[in-house]
């Protein structure tokens, strides 16, 4: 429906007619593919691609966490255990689509094709965003929770107004769905019918706070209903299911079907970040139970049973992972070059006179510093 039509309808019907919420409600059980007959119908090439990304992604998480211990990264919010969501999010998009990640989603950004070192710039401390968002069509990693969700709606809405068929996929955590901007984003998405998909990675915790203290909603997918946005729940450790659900939602959005809210049930196996002590709020037993649901293992179990994971395929995936990790180690070991003068370069299109003065002062300080060395 165009905005014009929306307005005409609104004028004719001053109050919304009660719409049947049934089509918006999530199914009672999360969507699954692995371990069901549907798995046999999936294209083996897709399965292998997902597998390679999962193996590389797992290695990326482990390597990045290791880099924090070596002081090479200031902090790393790991997505170990959530790789299925990360990989599926990146692979569900076409090159012209946009991804809106959070601090948790570096792997999704890397899986989309952004250089790992550029992706980790924020966490390395040499600037905030290291990659070119416009070139890669990946918004900056967002830290203020849920505040990037309206951006995804706006970008998707603008594209639609411009006759451009791109889709925006925005990521958030379970905790983020309590933030006002989550609700405002869904409100705007519902009203504008913007081609946007929201993926909630429900890993059960917002730092230490479990979901039961976060919300009384039946499921997070139900949160779409109040905004006229259909909700879908998916097994977040089943990469094939997440990929299928997201791809369907993305293509629905592209063809004018409007927004979708997807809730993926998953778990982060690592602490919130390397600086967090997860033992203070969750038990080893719980972690063990989720380890048994490891997304990488689950795909490999299926691939083996289907005869799709021969030794050579497995070796190639591992080799790709090691190459990525070695490259990351080597490049992150180099001290990043920072230019203090750049502090003034990107505040305004043209620096103000006041910034010019401050720039000159800092330049003088640096000259004095160099002279006294």
């Amino acid at each position, binding site marked *: 429906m*165009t*905005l*014009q039509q929306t*307005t005409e309808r609104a004028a004719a019907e001053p109050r919304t007619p009660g719409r049947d919420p049934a089509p918006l409600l999530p199914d009672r059980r999360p969507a699954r593919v692995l371990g069901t007959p549907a798995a046999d119908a999936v294209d083996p090439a897709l399965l292998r691609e997902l597998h390679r990304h999962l193996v590389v992604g797992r290695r990326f998480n482990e390597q990045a966490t290791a880099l924090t211990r070596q002081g090479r990264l200031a902090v790393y919010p790991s997505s170990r255990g959530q790789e299925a969501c990360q990989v599926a999010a990146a692979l569900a998009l076409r090159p012209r689509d946009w991804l809106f990640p959070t601090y948790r989603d570096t792997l999704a950004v890397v899986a989309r094709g952004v250089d790992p070192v550029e992706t980790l710039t924020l966490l390395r401390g040499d*600037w*905030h*965003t290291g990659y*070119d*968002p*416009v*070139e890669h069509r990946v*918004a*900056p990693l967002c830290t*203020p929770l849920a*505040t*990037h*969700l*309206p*951006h*995804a*709606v*706006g*970008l*998707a*809405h*603008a*594209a639609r*107004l*411009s006759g451009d068929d791109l889709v*925006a996929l925005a990521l958030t955590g379970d905790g983020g769905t309590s933030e*006002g*901007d989550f609700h*405002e*984003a869904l*409100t*705007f998405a519902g*009203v*504008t019918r913007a081609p946007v998909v929201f993926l909630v990675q429900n890993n059960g915790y917002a730092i230490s706070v479990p979901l039961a203290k976060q919300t009384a909603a039946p499921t997070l997918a139900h949160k779409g209903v109040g905004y006229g946005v259909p909700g879908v729940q998916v097994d977040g450790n089943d990469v094939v299911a997440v990929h299928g659900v997201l791809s369907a939602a993305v293509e629905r959005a592209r063809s004018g079907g409007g927004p979708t809210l997807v809730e993926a049930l998953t778990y982060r196996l690592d602490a919130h970040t390397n600086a967090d002590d997860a033992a203070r709020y969750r038990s080893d037993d719980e972690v063990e139970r989720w380890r048994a649901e490891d997304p990488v293992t689950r795909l490999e179990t299926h691939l083996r049973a289907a005869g799709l994971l021969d030794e050579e395929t497995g070796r190639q995936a591992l080799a790709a992972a090691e190459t990525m990790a070695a490259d990351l180690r080597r490049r992150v070991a180099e001290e990043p070059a920072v230019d203090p003068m*750049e502090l003034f*370069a*990107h*505040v*305004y*299109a043209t620096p*103000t*006179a*006041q910034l010019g003065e401050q720039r000159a002062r800092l330049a003088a300080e640096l000259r004095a510093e160099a002279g006294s060395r």
Partner: protein
Amino acid sequence: MTSRGTTMAEALNTALRHALRDDPAVHVMGEDVGTLGGVFRITDGLAAEFGDARCADTPLAESGILGTAVGMAMYGLRPVVEMQFDAFAYPAFEQLVSHVAKMRNRTRGRLPLPLTIRVPYGGGIGGVEHHSDSSEGYYLHTPGLHVVTPATVGDAYGLLRRAIASDDPVVFLEPKRRYWTKEDWSPDGPAAPVPPIGRAVLRRPGTDAVLITYGPSLPVCLEAADAAREEGLDVGVLDLRSLVPFDDETVCAAVRATGRAVVVHEASGFGGAGAEIAARVGERCFHHLEAPVRRVTGLDVPYPAPLLERHHLPGVDRVLDAVRDLQWPSATRARHGGEPYAVGA
């Protein structure tokens, strides 16, 4: 003031119309801006002329409005957001501070946000609470934003055109009690050239002292300068027009020429724009100053109820008192018939 003429509201409306006409990327959005034309009618007729996609009524959620506009700007559009009132822009504060102001910087210049946020601000309209805030202090303290406020009809048009054309985000503060004042102005008239953002203008020359002001306080200062003239003091009035970027050069030139300055604004004084201006003038013009820079501002109280607001707002008398307090030499006092002006603050 002529009875025929153009109001500031009409000039702003014309600026929006011309911006929509000249650049298909421009999109106006906000609460009630479509069919109604905005609660102050600044967007009157725009939806009818350009369609409700170019001038869009949004859901009632300020953070969502500004956040959506950020996304639209990321795509390459040039959104012009209307916040309905000063105090109702606060829900959008996080978007403004964490994203609008920082996006260019966070992305090393790769994602500039050409977006204008129009905010009717200030008091003096007898509004009930939450309708009269002077919120400029929050914005000018945030690097990455431009903060612009017109005081005249011509500037309302010219500065809004500049703001919309700017590749930086501009918080455009509209002095709502000036909306209905008329001036003899037309966009095609000889006085129409559009002033660049960041330039203050001397509205009235004066050799004895200068009143530094902006937005809703300009008429108060002009009136105070007239009254001072009757007391034999030649007081100039400087209209800043833009708080960020700040025009140190013009401000300092005016202060050096007179040696005495009073800063006037409606917002509360403590930690406000006037404090910054007085400090800057002190740092730059100390040896030219004959007296400390005085501030005449709103009281440090939450914005008062309508029947009390006149005690809060800087009026002509308070401005005159501050001028009289500028440590005039006895010769000047003699010129005023030996009237004993108080010395010091």
